[in-house]
C-alpha cells in the first residue's frame, strides 16, 4: 500500500469534492476507507495498492472530471 497526497486546483463547490471522492473510490486498488477529499485545502488523500493501480490512472480519473492536478506526493 502506498499513500498519496494530491494537490488539486482550488475547489469551489463542496459538491466537487463529493464527485472526486466517489470517482476515486470507484477505482480498483484504492482503499475506500482511506479516501479523504478536503474541500478547503483542496487535497485528495488516499491509500492505494500500486500493484493494481498506477498513480497516472488516479490522475487521469480526476482530470477527466474536469479538475486540474497540481502536485502529487507518494509515500510508502
Amino acid at each position, binding site marked *: 500500500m502506498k499513500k498519496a497526497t494530491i494537490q488539486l486546483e*482550488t475547489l*469551489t*463547490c*463542496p*459538491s466537487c469534492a*463529493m*464527485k472526486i471522492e*466517489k*470517482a476515486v473510490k*470507484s477505482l480498483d486498488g484504492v482503499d475506500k476507507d482511506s479516501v479523504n477529499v*478536503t*474541500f*478547503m*485545502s483542496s*487535497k485528495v488523500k488516499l491509500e492505494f495498492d500500486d500493484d493494481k493501480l498506477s498513480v497516472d490512472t488516479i490522475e487521469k480519473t480526476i*482530470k*477527466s*472530471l*474536469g479538475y*486540474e492536478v497540481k502536485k502529487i506526493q507518494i509515500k510508502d
Partner: protein
Amino acid sequence: MLRFILSKKNHITLISGILIAFSYFSEFVLKNETLFKWPMIIASVIGVIPIALQAFSALKVKVVSIDVLVTIAVIGAFIIGEFTESAIVTFLFLFGAFLEQRTLNKTRSAIKELTQMAPENALKQMESGEFIEVEIDEVDVGDVLLVKTGAKVPVDGTVLTGEGYINEASITGESFPVSKAKGSLVYAGTILENGTLQITADRVGEDTTFGKIIELVEEAQDSKSEAERFIDKFSKYYTPAVLVLALIVWIISKNLELAITILVLGCPGALVIGVPVSNVAGIGNGARHGVLLKGSEVVQVFSRVDTIVFDKTGTLTIGKPKVVDSKLYADDSDTALNYLVSVESESDHLLAKAVIEYVNNPEYYPVGNTDVIKGKGIVADVDGHRVAVGNLALMEYEKVNLNKEMRDDISRFEQNGDSLVLTSIDGELNVLMGIRDKLRPDVKKHLQKLKALRVKNLVVLSGDNQATVDKVAEELGLTQAYGNMLPQDKSEFIKKLQKNGHKVAFVGDGVNDSPSLALADIGIAMGSGTDVAIETSDVVLMNSDFSRLPHALGLAKATARNMLQNIIIAVGVVLFLLANVFFSEWMNMSIGMLVHEASIFVVILNGMRLLGYKLR
C-alpha cells in the same frame, strides 16, 4: 475538451452578460423584437454548456449536483420558449460561481499565507564542501546547511557554527528576534534577520514543527462537526428530493414553468457552503494569532465552556521557580546543604533544579538506595546517613519532630506563598527552603477577560501546599483554589465537575497533566511549539503565550455564532423562496436564482468577518 470549456468559464460568463445587456438595449431602445430574442437564445446556449458538462460528469459518478438541477431547469425553460429566463438563470449561476470563487479565495488566504511561508530551497553542503542551492525535497536529516541573512531556515535543526538573530513569528506568532548561537535549536519557516548560520538538519519536510502546524491547521479547517455531517448527509438526499418534488408538481399541475422554478429555488447552495466558510475563517484567524483550534467540533464545544481549570506551575506561573528564603537548623550547615544537593541531583523535579541552582559550589556525595515517595519527596542514603528531601507530608512520614521555631518558620513561609522543601538528616530537620515561581506577566488582566466572556468558574489546581495556592488565587482573582493535588486527583476533580454538568476546559503545559488534558472537554496546551502536547490537546497556545487564551475563547464563540447565523440565513432563504413560489404572484426563476446566489454571497461575506476578529 471538458477542461478547455471549463477553463473558459469566466469568458463565457462575460459574453453571456454582454449578450443579455445588448438584448435589453434592443428591446427598450431599439424596440426590435428579433434583436431582443436572439441574443438571449445565444446567451442561454453558451451559458448552459459548462453547467451541463459539470452536471454530466457528476451524474457519471452518481452524484446529483446543483448543476444537474440548473441544467434541467434551463433546458425546460428553453423548451417552453422562456429564453429570457433561461439566459438570466445561466448567467446568474455562472456569475455567482465566479464571485463565490473570488471570495472563497480571500477566506482561504489565511492558510495560504501560512503555507507560503514554507521554505522551498536550501543551501546544502556538498561533498566538496561547497554550498549549493537545492530544492527542499533534496535535503535529508543530517545534512549541513547554510542560512544567510534574510533567508528562511529550511529545516528544524541545530546551529553548528555562527551567530544570528531569528524571527520566529511563523512558529510562535511572536514577532521579535531571538538570539541563536552554536547548539541553539532553529525551526523551519523562521527567518534569519541578521548573521550567518551553519546548521545540521534534525527534522525535514512534514516532520518539522512548521510542517506539523500546517498539517494540523489544514486538517482542522476541513474537519467536520456533528451538525456539518448532518448537513452533508441531508444535502446528499436533498438535491434528488428537489428533483422528485419538481417532477411531482409537474405531473399534478401540468405546469412546466412552476416545476422548473422549483428546481432553481431548491438549490441548497448557501447551506453547504455557509458552515465550512465560518470554520475556515475562524481557524485561519486563530492560526495567524498563535492559536491552534483543532477543528470545527472543538470550536463548538469550546464556545460552550463555563469552567476553566488551570494547572499552576508553568501555566499561571512561568515555570522557573527560585529559592527565595531559607532557614538552617543544623550545626554543620555546609554538610547538610551538600547532602541536600547530592540527593536533589538525582531528581529532575522543577523544585530540585531550583535548589541546586541556589547552593553555591556544592560538594557531591555518592547517593544510594534512592526511594521516590510519590507526592512527598525523595529518601536516600548519603555518607551513611538517612536523608529525606520533600514536603511536610514527607516529614510526617519520616516522623520528624518539629519544634515551635520550626513550625513558626513553616507557617510564615506558607503565608508568603512559598512552596516548601524540607530536608531531614537521620530524622532531624536540618534545612527549610521557601521556593517561589513568578506569575506570568498580565495573567490577572487576561483572567478578567475570560470572566467577561462569561466563564463562571476559574479554578487552579496544584501539587503545592494549600496556603501557596490560596495566595495565588487571591492575587489573581480566581474563584476556586485547591492545593496538595496529585495528577490523578486533578483528573478526578475534572470528572466531578463534568458530572455536575459543567463544560470544562483544562489548561496545562502537558508535562505531567496529560491525563487531565485528555479528560477535559477541551484540553488546552501551553505549547512551546515542539511539545507532544500539540498532538494530544484540542487547542494549542503557541509559545506558551497566556495572552492568547482570551482571544482563543472569544474567537471560538464568535465562530460558533457565525456558523449558526449562516445556517439560519441559508435555511430561511430556501423556505422563503419555496413559500413564495406557491403563495405569491411575483416569484419566477430569475428572481429565485438572484436571491439564491445573493444568499450564497451573504454567507461567505458573513464568514469572512471572522478573519478580522479581535477581542475587545
